[in-house]
């Protein structure tokens, strides 16, 4: 498995490998079949696995998620796609009230191996209703696992882990990373393990998806100043690998969290709250959350760029943390 793939190819490969290895796995969503997905992340699956296992649905997100729930409870392992992550808003009941709670509400009778894939995030000029990073909407809903892959390897591995997990997993695939190239690795594939993307002793920088790549770019620049940041990609937000962050913090004593999306009520704020509550003695300076502006995602390129945390913002924040 050493050939280079794009993220979208890795996603299609992961689904194909799960479909091939388990007859209970089925895929459905809007245009995932004959059209190969609006993001071309399911190309070739319909031809290979046929219309029984790769199904095009109407534009009916409630029906898509509900169908996944019912099918899972009867023993299948459905992969449902709801296209743009913003559309989670039109089936929020099925995601937050049904999928997340069904196991609890049935006293553990329901087993819900449901994977819901969504295309996430800003940076491609889709405007405010097609650009949100919506993973934070679900942090307050116990019962869901949340995966936020930022590399080819993780797009493949986390998706396979999600399909094999007996719990509902929301997988956010970042639109701006779909063309990114890389290789995939052989398993095992696990949810809940952060990855130290770049080691460093001066500042712990936690970032996902686009922001992870932004942090890596900043790391190169900062290294020129003699500042070594440690970049950690949590890869899943639920469960969250606090331990890996705490280990790093014990070394750096400085924490910077970079989050695509507004600061309030997000995983970044929650992580900082947990770290300060549980590891207060580790901090030399107050932690920083670098997040998007508290506005809808704007359309014009210059505005959208201003909305999103960028490389220069990470560099500045890291310098300030080191200087204080």
């Amino acid at each position: 498995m050493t050939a280079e793939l794009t993220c979208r190819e890795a996603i299609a490969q992961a689904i194909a490998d799960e479909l091939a290895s388990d007859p209970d796995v089925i895929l459905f969503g809007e245009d995932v079949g004959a059209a190969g997905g609006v993001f071309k992340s399911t190309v070739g699956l319909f031809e290979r696995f046929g219309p029984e296992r790769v199904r095009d649905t109407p534009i009916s997100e409630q029906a898509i998620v509900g169908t996944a729930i019912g099918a899972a409870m009867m023993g299948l392992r459905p992969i449902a796609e709801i296209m743009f992550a913003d559309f989670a808003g039109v089936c929020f009941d099925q995601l937050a009230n049904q999928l997340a709670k069904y196991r609890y509400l049935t006293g553990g009778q329901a087993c819900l191996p449901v994977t819901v894939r969504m295309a996430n995030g800003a940076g491609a000029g889709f405007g405010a209703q097609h650009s949100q990073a919506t993973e934070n909407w679900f942090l307050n809903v116990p019962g869901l696992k949340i995966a936020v892959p930022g590399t080819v390897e993780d797009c493949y591995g986390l998706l396979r882990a999600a399909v094999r997990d007996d719990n509902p997993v929301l997988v956010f695939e970042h639109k701006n990373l779909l063309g990114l190239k890389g290789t995939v690795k052989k398993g095992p594939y696990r949810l809940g393990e952060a990855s130290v993307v770049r080691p460093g002793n001066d500042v712990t920088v936690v970032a996902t998806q686009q922001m992870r790549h932004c942090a890596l770019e900043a790391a190169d620049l900062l290294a020129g100043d003699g500042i070594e940041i440690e970049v950690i990609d949590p890869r899943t937000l639920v469960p969250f690998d606090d331990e890996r962050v705490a280990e790093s913090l014990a070394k750096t004593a400085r924490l910077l969290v970079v989050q695509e999306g507004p600061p309030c009520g997000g995983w970044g704020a929650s992580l900082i709250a947990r770290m300060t509550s549980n590891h207060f003695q580790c901090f030399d300076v107050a932690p920083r959350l670098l997040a998007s502006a508290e506005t809808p995602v704007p359309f014009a390129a210059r505005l959208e760029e201003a909305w999103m945390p960028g490389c220069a913002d990470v560099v500045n924040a890291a310098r300030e943390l080191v200087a204080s």
Partner: protein
Amino acid sequence: MRAGVRERHRRWDGGKETLMNRTSSENSVARPADSAADRQLPPDWHQLLRSMLCIRYFEDQVKALFGSGLVRGSTHLCQGQEAVAVGVCSLLTPGDAMTCSYRGHGAVLAAGAAMDACFGEILGREGGLCKGKSGSMHLADFDKGIIGSNAIVGAQLPISLGAGLAAQYRKTGKVSVAFTGDGSTNIGAFHETMNLAAVWRLPVVVVVENNHYGEYSPLAATTSVTRLCGRATAYGMPGLLVDGNDLLAVREVAEDAISRARAGQGPTLIEADTYRHEGHSRSDPAKYRPAGELELWLARDPIPRFEEVVLAARAATRADLASLRDGTKADVEEALERAKTWPEPPANRLYEDVYR
């Protein structure tokens, strides 16, 4: 469809029906009932009658429990609608799936859940159907194919599609039945469900229990076309109208729909015309009902109506039926007393069953 069924329900054919936009009181005289003597009594009549009685007495007890403050939250009772639940659920076999609304105690009991476990859940006891985690509005018993009543209006409908899809995909000949209220026909999930069920020809039967009120509002005040089975036309599936207070009529219609589903002929919408004797929920005395409406429906109570059929067939005497009532009532009371002795779940169960 078998001969004879057509007389007792109507297949909606897209316009020949002339029953649209009637008020609920007009609906109450919808169809002349067949005379009890004409009816063929099924061999399992005893079980059917007992099942309806269980639901009636169960709900009476739940009402009393809530009234006396022994139970928390709210509840939604279904006295008067027993024939719909029993008629349909009596046709389900192992492997079939059933979902229903929060007015679902009846369907859950009719599908075979144990009475004491249902009481236990409503009382929030550890021995309840869902270990005390869910309460009155979320009852589930997966071993019996009861994959959940639902507290969100219409939310069980998309979920029922999935059970239908699993049956279709595995070619099991199983069926997914979803009970839902008239009020739910105006929520988006209903539309999405009907269309997807039809376009994928899923083995799904949607049973609309038309009790004429969506919460506190009469159907006609919120719904432009009140003959709900007519919605089926828009989705290209059969829509069947049935007197929901006539157990045998419900069963015949359901048999038709379920057979079609099992045979791979796709979904059916059934509208069962019925009435809830109680208000919407615990806090609703139903003062919005026109004078005399309840009395009209009490005169069409599905339980005495079925008892008349039993008597006409000479399958039992009035004394036999009285004894069945007394025995069933005693069984319900006994189940409740048993559930009352069960402990509440200990606090450390809080974190169980969030994830597997």
